[in-house]
């Protein structure tokens, strides 16, 4: 608790247009250095929007997003791209770049406007491919590799960016169990090496496997946030998803199952406000 938060949101409210309903309302939480943080919530809860706000892509109507203590605007776009990187949920690539040429694009924030990547950038990219265990893919076309491999390539591009914070939008959404394990263990390892990881998912399992901290989001509001052990409970998860879920401990792990015995309405009708 001694280290100051790397990213801090204070009472953030956001709507895409002034007249539209708020996508996020009064969102506040903080994440600290070298931790894995998971934003958990059903589809449409505002998870991706939250990432875009931290990235500085959108500006909140109310409240403030702080990165390393300073409001996001004070960082400037170029500087921010050396602090925060993003792995998008899915990326359509219209040209058949090789994996290596694609990953080295992550060096852009460290180059001046007209500068081309040099030998150090090539080495950084190669090292990252090795670190993620995908160096044998380097000369393959990004249009030809599997979905799981592309996810690793997108992560590699963000890692090459060498930022303090790594944001990932549903990094495990389209992966089979083996690839999911691989991605999650990479994220765990990155956090161990000092990167602050924040990812969104609608899958509680991913959170349970590696999260230090969990942020529960429902209908644009935070239900609970805090350490995994405190927040990841049967009651909180059921409220988040509006269906009866049950958290079971299996050895050192927590497993979430759908509780088919309980009627769904009981949780479905709960509004986030009433639980705050």
């Amino acid at each position, binding site marked *: 608790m001694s280290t100051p938060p790397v990213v801090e949101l204070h009472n953030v409210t956001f709507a895409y247009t002034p007249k539209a309903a708020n996508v996020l309302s009064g969102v506040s939480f903080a994440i600290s250095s070298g931790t894995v943080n998971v934003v958990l919530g059903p589809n449409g809860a505002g998870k991706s929007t939250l990432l*875009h706000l931290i*990235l500085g*892509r959108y500006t909140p109507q109310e409240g403030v997003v702080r990165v390393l203590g300073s409001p996001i605007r004070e960082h400037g*776009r*170029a500087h*921010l*791209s*050396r602090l*925060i*990187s*993003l792995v*998008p949920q899915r*990326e*359509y*690539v*219209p*040209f*058949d*770049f*090789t994996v*290596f*040429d694609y990953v080295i*694009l*992550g060096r*852009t*924030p460290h*180059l001046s*406007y*007209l*500068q*081309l*990547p040099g*030998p*150090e950038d*090539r*080495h950084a990219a*190669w*090292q990252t491919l*090795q670190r993620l265990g995908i*160096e044998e893919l*380097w*000369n393959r*076309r990004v*249009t*030809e590799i599997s979905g799981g491999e592309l996810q690793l390539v997108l992560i590699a591009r963000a890692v090459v*960016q060498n930022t303090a914070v790594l944001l990932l939008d549903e990094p495990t959404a389209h992966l089979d169990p083996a690839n999911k394990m691989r991605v999650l263990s990479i994220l765990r390892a990155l956090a161990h090496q000092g990167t602050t990881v924040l990812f969104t998912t609608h899958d509680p399992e991913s959170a349970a496997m590696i999260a230090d901290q969990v942020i529960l989001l429902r209908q644009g509001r935070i239900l609970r946030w805090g350490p995994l052990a405190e927040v990841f409970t049967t009651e909180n998860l059921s409220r988040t998803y509006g269906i009866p879920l049950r958290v079971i401990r299996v050895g050192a792990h927590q497993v979430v199952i759908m509780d088919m015995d309980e009627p769904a309405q009981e949780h479905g009708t709960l509004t986030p406000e009433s639980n705050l």
Partner: protein
Amino acid sequence: MTRLPPVMIQREQRFRRLYTGLFVALAFLIGLSILLGRYPRPFWLSPARLPGDPLAIQLVWALRLPRILAAVLLGASLAASGFVLQMVFRNPLVEPGFLGVSQGAAFGAAFAILYLGTSVIVIQVSATVFALIGLILSYTLARHLHYGGWILRMILAGIAVSALFAAGVGMLKYLADPLTQLPEITFWLLGGLWSTRWPNVLAILPVTWLSLTLLYLTRWRLNVLALEETTAFSLGAAPDRERAIVIFLAVIATAAVVSLAGIIGWVGLIVPHTARRLFSPDARHALPASVLLGGMFTLVCDDLARTLTAGEIPLGIITSLLGALAFILLMTTQREQVKP
């Protein structure tokens, strides 16, 4: 530092050899084109003849050289422009001719001939303004179409806007003086370089040179702009502003060469495809390769246009013929993934 794998270094070396090859080929083609023509007899002017033949020297200097330079600039600009538009619109199927740019420029040129006088600068500015209007219209329309994906919508919008400008050109032709203005306008629609002299080439040289140089310098940014909006943003780019800048550069180069040569189709589509095939989609390699290959392609086409027959075959017909054939060949054997 870790060691890069030898294959990666071999790839760099292969690209370097390819570049050298392209430069040599372009130089060779330029030399060859000087000797190609219909004087003193069809197809060939022997270099041995040059020193003692003032007419031949005059012909080479005043007619063939400016035309050769114009052909190279034309192809280089159209190819670079096509490549840039493909990158920033994330769409391998666009080219200036598909986006209302060329038709807009032709309309602007015809409009200037009719109403603004025939000064080269005025025609060029008018062509540029209408080329930009064409692009903006296509883009705006594509955003409002309710049919198909982004790539298809841009193509459909481009077809519609091009048709509007083509109708406009038709109207201008109808209004034009059949003895003085009409032939000049018709020239834009056929496309060709037969009336190119030094002043025409020198008029477009600064614009095309500047545009190509700046695009070459920003080629790394083109890679970034080819990524999704949010990704480009997360890499520190200002996608909207940077796109606007490179699109503007591409359009002024296109408008300049269109004001010189008329509408020359397919170069901006086929050449970047070939460049990506030969090198990689990475703009560091594919953009300069497009410039070199584009210059070669139109030079060869123009050589054919002026030597094959005693008359002159319009250049646009030859580029369309060869370009469309090459395109069919590439599309049926291609690796690039195009989602309609």
